[in-house]
């Protein structure tokens, strides 16, 4: 179990570092096992340095920076052990427009690089527009959910009109 954890740590860390730099358009980050000599008792700390800033632990970053760093870690674990499906439930909520754009670009790249199918739940218009297909869930009858397929072109027109 110890060697498995250490080898997973190395692979995740390598992926995490690359993904961080991709998502932040620069800067660097790394993972570290702390608090105990035995890896199975240790803690995982995250160090990040957004472009042009000083290196710090995750807790000193802003809300959006912490989210983007965590997304890099989640995808780092995903790439270590790629699954046939990946579901992301409102992961982009704290992000500003330019970070939403980078998140979507990463999703598009990962969808091309792997055969994984991605299901993305979001309220961000930009993210909606970058999907290959869109489903809307409505509750026209209160308390009863209905799934409808949304024609993307139609949806874009409605958003512009709003």
């Amino acid at each position, binding site marked *: 179990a110890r060697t498995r954890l250490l080898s997973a740590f190395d692979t*995740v860390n390598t992926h995490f570092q690359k993904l961080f730099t991709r998502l932040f358009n620069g800067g660097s980050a790394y993972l570290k096992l702390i608090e105990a000599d035995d890896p199975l008792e240790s803690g995982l700390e995250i160090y990040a340095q957004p472009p042009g800033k000083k290196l710090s632990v995750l807790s000193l970053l802003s809300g959006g920076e912490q989210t983007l760093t965590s997304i890099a870690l989640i995808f780092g*674990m*995903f790439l270590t052990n790629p699954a046939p499906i990946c*579901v992301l*439930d409102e992961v982009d909520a704290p992000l500003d427009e330019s970070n939403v754009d980078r998140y979507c670009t990463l999703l598009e790249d990962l969808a091309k690089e792997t055969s994984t199918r991605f299901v993305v739940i979001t309220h961000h218009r930009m993210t909606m527009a970058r*999907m290959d297909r869109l489903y809307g869930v409505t509750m026209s009858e209160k308390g009863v959910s209905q*799934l409808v397929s949304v024609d993307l072109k139609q949806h874009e027109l409605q958003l512009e009109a709003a």
Partner: protein
Amino acid sequence: MHFKKLKLTGFKSFVELTEFEIGKGLTGIVGPNGCGKSNIMEALRWAMGENSPKRMRSSGMEDVIFAGTEMRPPRNSAEVTLFLDNSERTAPAELNDSDELEVVRKIERDVGSTYKVNGKVVRMRDVQLLFADSSVGSHSPALVSQGRVADMINAKPTQRRMVLEEAA
């Protein structure tokens, strides 16, 4: 193995038969607050053998059965079917004899859950193994529930290491 489609009946707010196609690439789900988006993700996790009610935002597993509204009576059962493409024949041996796999989980009030794969009754363990072999499962780090990113950020370092172990 590919995930092709999800079919829900009587599951949480999806009381009517609902089909959700999972195509290649990026599929978006949108809609107002409280309309049922996260419930779809929970239906997927449930069909893969999730057995902790807490992870389903419930106190007991029967909370997933449609509880009724001001206009409709509650249901007595819930059922989710997951359609998988097995043309690469990667399933465990006893389930590997066809191109398509239909995993069905059904729960009835006071009876409990039953699982079927292509019509054959199987145990929960069999379903969990089916998914574990293709490195996805109800506990997979690839299923990022609402609020999970905030939990990772606020987690203590030892809790984060445990997440890493699950991913290994």
